[in-house]
């Protein structure tokens, strides 16, 4: 099925409203970070203007931004690794092994994700206080892995059951252990699923606000808490908030660019012959 030229033209045409809708608010945030507040509300709106760097210098001088950036990065990377390791193992366990109540247990995993966080935060605080983990990376990390894990498990089940069983059986016959099959056969074929699970685990931690606010004091404070602090009693500091938001977006973009080459079709093509 060769795509035709008019099909390409139609696709390009559809992309215009899609990208405009997606990118306009981002553009507005990005430009707000280079504007004075007066210019943000100018009528007619300023599309072209002389950029100012004041918002960035204020954020970087008034707040130990890089300290909080490090906190956010360490916790987010830890969350991603933790939920990928546990999620891959459990996802494969659910996808390939049946036991009594396996469906009920799997639903219960999802139920763990349904509880309102507002309700969990107080008892979780008391639990971490008991364990001496308040205001530490570990305390937030444990919470975020538990947030990200149910989705990782359910998503990866979906990708793992689609891996052709014949390939796995062939590897077993060739003497591969179950863990070997998972690592050498299943993971490479289901790579797009792992990429998506990784991106969302990272984002769960990166954007989370409530738990970060309640559980971290000084040492483990993350960026969303810092940014929310710019929403002062006297009203939001739009310029500084936007500048911080732009800087907070950059690591995500780098991560996605690094991971997206695994988001490709075709690894199963030809895996099973006949």
């Amino acid at each position, binding site marked *: 099925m060769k*795509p035709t030229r008019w099909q390409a033209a139609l696709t390009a045409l*559809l*992309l215009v409203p*899609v*990208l405009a809708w*997606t*990118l306009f*608010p*981002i553009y507005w945030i990005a430009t*707000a970070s280079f504007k004075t507040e007066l210019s943000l*509300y100018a009528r007619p709106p300023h599309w072209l203007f002389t950029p100012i760097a004041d918002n960035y210098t204020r954020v970087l001088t008034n707040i130990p931004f890089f300290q909080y950036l490090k906190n956010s990065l360490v916790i987010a990377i830890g969350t991603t690794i933790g939920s990928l390791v*546990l*999620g891959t193992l459990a996802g494969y*366990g*659910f996808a*390939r092994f049946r*036991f009594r109540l396996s*469906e009920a247990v799997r639903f219960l*995993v*999802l139920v*763990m*994700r*349904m509880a*309102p966080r*507002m*309700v*969990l935060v*107080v*008892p979780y605080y008391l*639990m971490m206080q008991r364990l001496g983990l308040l205001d530490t990376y570990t305390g937030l990390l*444990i919470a975020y*892995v*538990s947030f990200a894990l*149910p989705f990782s498990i359910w998503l990866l*089940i*979906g*990708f793992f*059951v*689609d891996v052709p069983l014949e390939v796995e059986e062939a590897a077993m016959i060739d003497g591969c252990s*179950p863990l070997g099959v998972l690592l050498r056969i299943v993971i490479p074929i*289901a790579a*797009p*699923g792992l*990429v998506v699970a990784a991106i969302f685990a990272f*984002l769960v931690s*990166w*954007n989370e606000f409530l738990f970060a606010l309640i559980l971290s004091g000084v040492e483990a404070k993350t*960026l*969303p808490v810092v*940014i929310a602090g710019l929403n002062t009693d006297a009203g939001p500091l*739009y310029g500084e908030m*936007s500048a911080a*938001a732009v800087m907070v977006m950059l690591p995500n*973009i780098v991560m*996605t*660019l690094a991971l*997206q080459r695994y*988001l490709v*079709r075709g690894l*199963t093509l030809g895996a099973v012959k006949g």
Partner: protein
Amino acid sequence: MAVGSAGRWFLLPGLVFLFTIDLIPLLYSAWISFYNWWLLRPRDVRFVGLANYARLASDAEFTRAVVVTTLFTSGAVLVEFLAGLGLALLFAQPFRFLRPLRVLLLLPLFVVPVVGATMWRVIFHPEIGVLNYYLSVLGLGRPPWLSDPTLALVSITIVDAWRTIPFMFLVMYAGIETLPGELYEAASVDGASAWHRFRYITVPLLTYIMLLAVLIRAMDVFREFDIIFVLTGGGPGTATQTIQILNYRAFGLGHMGEANAIGMVTLILVTLMCWILLRAVLGRRGAPA
């Protein structure tokens, strides 16, 4: 289907971790919900059984919040699902120029939710916002996006959709990318139309991933807080007062028993909703193929 004791070793680490970390706080919260506990009267804490739940059941404001939450959830999830699926299919086409654009489509996910919502409030501003400036230039008036009861619900749906269509897109796009290409080739050799390939190959093979995307979004929209809090705070009146906003108020006033009861009711409602969705789509077995 392999059966064996090896499965246990795959499952145990994740499950033990998850249930230990989540069940303890949940049980604690369920326990508190049976108490009358107001932080302003710390000496008057007593066990009241189901009284907090009974009060919620007869509270018109709570019933109204359930209706608002349900409306918001069904509207937002429907819009996001259709848009996400459309985009996933659009981007699954084999055109090279689509590759570099994928990341652009994901950008809204990377904006800290509170900042995104704050910026939308600026855009929506009836007098000095950029949206109404261009609408009035086009002669379409200046709609009060956040202060009209109906429009306010539409506005928070718009912001939620802007933020999370990328989630729907990415999950379904990755799902489509792992579908076996041979099937599509065979089908087009046999003369199947694009619609038939979609209806008889993509939909059945993607059912589980689509269902999961809807489930996750449904439970998140149902418990959405940040966007509503920043944009409308539940207003005007009670137009966008969802269960979460009520829950926040209850915590803010220090009514711990009632607040935890609201949380438990939310959990029960979300669980029911997901259970019904799962059953409806997958049938009685409730399992992926």
